[in-house]
């Protein structure tokens, strides 16, 4: 029983991490129409940046914030650098381009940091009844706070209105004086920042290694597809479900089989519920 409770709590942590990553993916997809296959590498970047900042600063939380911001800037700039050249290009070319980014970023991480695991100590010791490690609970709450902040930003602020305007009708929004350029820059930055934050949060749990982004990328894509492409609420629900399902399944089978079962479950959802998976554009 205790084991199941612990795995459920772990599932919530994994779920919120997937949610953070998937949110960035779905934002950049819904508004910039980019299928970003390097999103997992942004996640990896967040973890490595945190590790690097931590070895200089010594403070985990400050390092995490700096790393998320740095990932937002680097990742966002990377996407925007090619946005002009690929203007009007279909999803195929974006997917291949970002796949190329992924190769380059993974190899850069390999060259800079080596192949071994980079770990930092848990910044918070102690446990919470039923939930396990205190750090996990704090990370979960921080992720939820980030998601809530994003929802407020999109829903209530002036920039949020501009972003939604561009998303729903770009031409009309531009005619009304919204700068598409600015909105794109914001979205690229926020998207990469969310992935970076997720990577930073997971660093003390999973440690950092060059290929860490692959698994999270798969999960994020699964929930983005199943949640309805570009649909934020759907992605959130699907993330939590995926995290819980995977964590519970790990109790009874090999992690790789758990992953396959999760994939198959979601494929089944895809088959049964087609309106949830229609592209939003």
């Amino acid at each position, binding site marked *: 029983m205790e084991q199941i409770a612990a795995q459920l709590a772990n599932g919530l942590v994994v779920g919120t991490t997937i949610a953070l990553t998937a949110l960035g993916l779905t934002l950049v*997809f819904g508004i910039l129409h980019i299928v970003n296959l390097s999103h997992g590498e942004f996640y990896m970047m967040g973890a490595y940046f945190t590790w690097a900042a931590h070895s200089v600063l010594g403070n985990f939380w400050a390092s995490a914030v700096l790393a998320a911001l740095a990932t937002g800037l680097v990742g966002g700039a990377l996407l925007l650098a090619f946005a002009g050249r690929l203007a009007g290009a279909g999803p*195929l*070319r974006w997917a*291949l381009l970002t796949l*190329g980014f992924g190769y380059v970023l993974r190899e850069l991480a390999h060259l800079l940091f080596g192949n071994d695991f980079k770990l930092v100590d848990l910044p918070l010791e102690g446990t919470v009844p039923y939930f396990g490690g205190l750090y996990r609970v704090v990370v979960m709450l921080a992720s939820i706070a980030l998601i809530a902040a994003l929802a407020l930003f999109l829903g209530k602020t002036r920039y949020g209105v501009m972003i939604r305007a561009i998303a729903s009708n770009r031409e009309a929004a531009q005619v009304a004086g919204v700068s598409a350029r600015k909105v794109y820059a914001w979205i690229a930055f926020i998207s990469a920042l969310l992935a970076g934050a997720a990577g930073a949060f997971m660093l003390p749990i999973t440690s950092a290694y060059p290929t860490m982004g692959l698994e999270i990328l798969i999960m994020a894509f699964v929930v983005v597809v199943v949640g309805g492409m570009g649909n934020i609420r759907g992605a959130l629900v699907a993330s939590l479900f995926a995290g819980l399902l995977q964590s519970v399944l790990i109790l009874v089978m090999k992690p790789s089989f758990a992953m*396959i079962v999760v994939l198959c479950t979601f494929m089944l959802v*895809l*088959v049964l519920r*087609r309106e949830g*998976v229609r592209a939003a554009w």
Partner: protein
Amino acid sequence: MVSAAGRGAIACAALAAAAVVPFWLPPYFVYLLTELVIWGLVAVSLDLLIGYAGLPSFGHAVFFGVPAYAFGIAATRSESLAIAFAAALVAIAAVSVLVGYLATRTGGVGYIIVTLLCSFAFFIGAIAWTGLTGGENGLYVPAAMSMDALPMHARYLIVLAIGALVGGFAWWLSRSAYGLALLGIKANERRMQAMGYDTKKYKFQVTVLAGSIAGIAGVLYALVVRTLSAELVGPELSTEAVIWVLLGGAQTLIGPVLGAALFISLKQILNNIPAYPMLLGLVFVAVVAWAPSGLVKLRLPQLRGVRTDERTQD
């Protein structure tokens, strides 16, 4: 511009040259050429999807690798070639229908993501299910169940003949009314629907068809190369194949074959340099950003009335 008859003559001459010239080459090169023909077949089948139907498959390795594995698994467990071929046929049908169904169920971009996810799923499965696939050690097709008894040139000629036959079929298909309908769907799906075409059916059919061609290539691979590993169903091969097609020029059929040959030859040479993945990534970026219509795109005449500019497709 070359006339249709002229192009036919060129194709025949090229095929004859491909059949005869290797008799003067050392066996190792003939072996490499055999592999290149197999990869060329994969490239052709993927071009049917990307270039003609506008369906960007990022999981093409599944169509290739699963039948290869099915053949290998059956071959190691039974003495009969017939059973092995039957298993491969069942696998070809099952995997192309399954992935085709899932992929065409979602809209345009869903096709990319769902095929890629399928490739991941089979890749993880191939590594994890060690009892069936040999896991990371891979699977060896027994020599008695392969083409090993034949001399190298005979193997090459058999593969070339099958490749030419299937490739010729793909070429014929691309020129037929069916191929035109595919181009129409790629250019403007709504308009095709308005004209009464069941575009979903076309997309599903062409995915199954292309998947089957890739499956034939997979079985040939199992017969010739004999070593099967999880990479054969994985996302790396899947996405590399997309680069072959783009590098050679989509919607030309022959372009992707040359793209595959160029890419694989370069890979053979560069594989050992230290930062190879970085180079690979930069190639992807460079092809997409600066050579979107292919390095060696042949100037084939555009089909009348069908606008197929890649930039206009979404």
